[in-house]
């Protein structure tokens, strides 16, 4: 295929982001600490511009460019648009937190934007090469970000662990990819999909599939490939945890959909069983261990693990309904997680991070708006109607019930009930306990408004779930 410039059009959001991040990189070199608002504004502008471009390009069609390595389709549009728009509150919260801890430096913006670029490449990849490229771009940025708090040995340790385990997972993924390549001789997903027809029980294929699924499970943080999650969430500074805990889940879903559905849809029987095992382990372990946590960042880490179980349920249903449910879930989840860490950031004080559950006690007396936001977010995570979390769970459960996996739905509901305990415990601390100190909450205007919108969005999307569902 000869190259012509029209092939660049589907990549416009990525190009805008790349130009934006380059400008931010250069401008940041020339500004003083006080003038850093300018690159920050440019960052937000870049995200919004790329997001709007994505929306404008979304026309329900599918375009494949660059010799079949890159794809733009309705799924990539919705995932990328939600990624880019959710990145805005993430940046606003992160800035608030980094300013409080005196670490508001340009590297955060550059690294995060590059990570987002990596995620977009992952979502739009149509073959293993571009997929791996995006994955590594994302991972390398995240490793560096986890170590962002340079003076903290805890952060450095977490980054080191994340890096080594990530390298191990990448190795497993690459090994799996090479197996699949060996069995099919192809690297792009449509060709692989054709090549595997009729070879469902080919031992090499299944062998490769196991390794690829493990690579995916690591990215999601599914049990037993979850070990990095609590340490990284806890070790990284909260603004970085906020990032790690929200946006990459959207990209990971894109990754899973590309490999499992676009590429290996024929092997659904095999990967369905694998995902069932991983989902069950994740929901069980995540919910149980979260109860024992006193550290709220670790608690949210285990909560993530249990939510990953739910997202897997949507994928493993193997029906369009299930895929849509999974996409709905992941977007809702990313928004909830961003909000929850955002509230923690809002509670941070200069030089002191809030990460213990008891520090939330009596929040309602200190700051009713934040308390209300936290209430909505926690109810949404627990799946209490009429918040969006309820519908996220409902759609996933409907999808797996309609493919006959009722027992799995029952187990999922059972673990959700256990999980509700630790979310509601947070609400109890916020509303019914007396404050343990009388330090006032100091939170910037932008973050406060954004948090209120974030919390109310959980309610609004719960009352009008169709707004989001119809887009997917």
């Amino acid at each position, binding site marked *: 295929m000869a190259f012509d410039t029209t092939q660049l059009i589907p990549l416009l959001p990525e190009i805008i982001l790349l130009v934006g991040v380059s400008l931010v990189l250069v401008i940041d070199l020339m500004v003083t600490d006080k003038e850093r608002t300018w690159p920050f504004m440019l960052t937000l502008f870049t995200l919004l511009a790329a997001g709007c471009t994505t929306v404008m390009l979304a026309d329900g069609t599918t375009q494949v460019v660059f010799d079949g390595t890159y794809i733009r389709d309705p799924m990539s549009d919705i995932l990328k648009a939600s990624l880019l728009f959710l990145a805005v509150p993430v940046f606003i919260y992160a800035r608030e937190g980094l300013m409080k801890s005196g670490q508001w430096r340009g590297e955060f913006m550059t690294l995060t934007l590059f990570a987002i670029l990596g995620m977009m490449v992952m979502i739009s990849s149509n073959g293993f090469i571009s997929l791996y490229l995006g994955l590594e771009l994302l991972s390398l940025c995240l490793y560096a970000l986890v170590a962002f708090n340079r003076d903290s040995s805890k952060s450095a340790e977490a980054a*080191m*662990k994340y890096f*080594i*385990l990530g390298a*191990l*997972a990448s190795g*497993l993924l690459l090994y799996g990819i090479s197996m699949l390549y060996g069995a099919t001789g192809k690297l792009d997903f449509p060709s692989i999909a054709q090549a595997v027809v009729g070879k469902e*029980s080919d*031992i090499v294929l*299944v*062998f490769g*599939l*196991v*390794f690829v*699924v*493990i690579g995916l*499970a*690591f990215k999601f943080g599914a049990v*037993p*490939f979850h*070990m*990095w999650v*609590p*340490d990284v969430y806890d070790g990284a500074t909260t603004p970085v945890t906020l990032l790690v805990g929200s946006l990459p889940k959207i990209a990971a879903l894109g990754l899973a959909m590309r490999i499992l559905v676009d590429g290996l849809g024929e092997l659904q029987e*095999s990967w369905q*069983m*694998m995902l069932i*095992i991983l989902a069950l382990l994740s929901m069980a*372990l995540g919910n*149980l*261990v*979260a*109860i*024992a*946590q006193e550290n709220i960042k670790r608690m949210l880490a285990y909560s993530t693990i249990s939510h990953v179980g739910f997202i897997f349920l949507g994928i493993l249903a193997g029906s369009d309904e299930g895929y849509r449910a999974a996409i709905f879930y992941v977007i809702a989840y990313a928004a909830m997680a961003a909000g929850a860490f955002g509230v923690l950031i809002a509670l941070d004080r200069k030089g002191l991070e809030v990460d213990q559950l008891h520090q939330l006690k009596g929040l309602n007396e200190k700051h009713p708006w934040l308390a209300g936001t936290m209430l909505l977010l926690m109810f949404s995570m627990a799946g209490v109607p009429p918040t969006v979390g309820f*519908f996220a769970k*409902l759609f996933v459960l409907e999808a797996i019930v309609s493919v006959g996996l009722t027992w799995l739905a029952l187990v999922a509901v059972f673990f959700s009930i*256990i999980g509700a305990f630790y979310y509601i415990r947070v609400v109890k601390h916020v509303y019914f306990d007396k404050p343990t100190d009388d330090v006032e909450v100091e939170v910037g205007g932008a973050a406060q408004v954004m948090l209120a919108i974030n919390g109310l969005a959980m309610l609004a999307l719960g*009352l*009008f*779930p*169709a707004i989001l569902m119809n887009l997917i």
Partner: protein
Amino acid sequence: METIYLTIVLAPLIGAIIAGLWRNQVGKAGAHWVTIIGVGISCVLSIYVLLGFTHGDAESQNLSLYTWMVSDGLRFEIGFLVDQLTAMMMAVVTFVSLMVHIYTVGYMAHEEGYQRFFSYIALFTFSMLMLVMSNNFMQLFFGWEAVGLVSYLLIGFYFKKETAIFANLKAFLVNRVGDFGFILGIAAIAMYTNSLDYAEVFEKSAGLANEQITVFPGTSWSLMTVICVLLFIGAMGKSAQMPLHVWLPDSMEGPTPISALIHAATMVTAGIFMVARMSPLYELSETALSFVLIIGATTAFFTGLIGIVQNDIKRVVAYSTLSQLGYMIAALGASAYAAGVFHLMTHAFFKALLFLAAGSVIIGMHHDQDIRNMGGIRKYMPITWITSLLGSLALIGTPFFSGFFSKDAIIESVHLADRFGTNYAYYLLVAGVFVTALYSFRMFFLVFHGNGPRDEHAKAHLHESPWVVTVPLVLLAIPSVVIGWFTIEPMLFGEFFKDAIYVDSANDVLAHMGEGYHGALGFVVHGVMQAPFWLALGGFLTAWYIYMMKPSIALDIKVRFDWLYTILDRKYGFDELFQFVFAGGSRMLGKIFWKGGDQFLIDGVAVNGSAHGVGWLASVARYLQTGFLNHYAIAMILGLIGLVGWFVILQ
């Protein structure tokens, strides 16, 4: 039209949210302005909608705006059904609400929680509109519960007062009983028609008319009777019908404006509205209609009697409300739905007026509500006096006043109706007219005439209330006097409710009455020759004689008929009965379950047992997270080996 309907509903909600959440930012003036503007917009647009029906050629509209979710074919929707019945309710609700909003500016001027109060009443307006405009049972239930919630919040508005807390809890619990029946009724409808949409349910209900169901083994009941009675139990709770009426008098603990708005003009009439709306269902069950009729007539007479012995100005009006609600319910039971709704409308005006006038007196008396301490207030509060007089005349059914037309129509239609219980109901309703006149004018004379207030201090400070209080009184007095004259013909005998209310032609007493109807004047002339008019006059004269001429008689009667007085003063013992049997019984039951079931079985074994189990598991599982990198890597490799073993080697 859709935009107009949405604006009508949402304007008060937005006002409520602003006044509630930003109460410190908007301040007192901001709170009342934003809610008054919100409700004002609703009111103007509602009247516009109503005019579309009366003077234009508007069609009834059934719109589904939004599907919240679909579960097994059952759609949960938000939608509006706007026909003549709805339009009339919308206009009445928003108009009275607007008057009450304005009045509150004066009444609550020096109270704490000013913004909270405005936020609640605007929220109430929103909920009530959602209730009346609904086109499905789900939204009806939402509105039903939402008005109940706001009512609960407002009865307990003075939440530091013990009696107010007791009263709002009581209202809440009694309504639970009613709502339990109501939701069972909705569930039965959903079960047999697999739909919650009014239009669909009505369509399918005709086919279910002869369906029999077995609720308890060995019984066979008509499905429609069960559904209608269950729904009516909900109405009994909300519209305070015997024996679920006990909460309404106690609800007077709330501020007076909400007594007028919620506990007289609008919320308590939701039950009447609901039955009228469900007329296609009720017409299928004679038994249910008889039940409705008997309950209504019983309430109308017996609660009226209690009104005679009450001394709290608001409680007298509250018992009068109960009694009038009974009249409306009785009309429904006689298949004269239009007459019930007609009385609902006229009553909304004159009863809101009476409550607000009582509130005006209460302001003047510095929150002393005992009518024995009042008297001679006429001189000090002329506007309150004249408007009260007009309201009372309307209430007792003086010819040409609005109440006359609606009450006479009810009594006449019950007389003409032919079903079990009509005779019983007719005599009670006719006797009730005497009682109504007696308690109304007993209160009127004691408050406004005779010798001035006993307390000299109170006397010195008596003066007419500010304009924000008197203007709503005047604006409510106008429809109280004239609205019956102008609307009786279209509402009762005309085509107005043709599409909205369905009456089986065999039951159509109003059509029967309509044959003898020759204009409003003829109706008055006919009415003057009937017993109710003379009984009302008798009640008035009795009150005048006893309380103006010979006050000693009242005491004499009280001593001589001590047993009767005690019965009435104790309100037939319903409170004691409920508190002893139901409250006490459920507490005892609760205690048994608490000690035996909850503390031992559930807390001890199930909850704490499983919580300990979960907690133990959690504490063990957390040790998996050792912090050592090599352990993490081994976990991954073990996972790998496990999956490979399962999928590659075993298969």
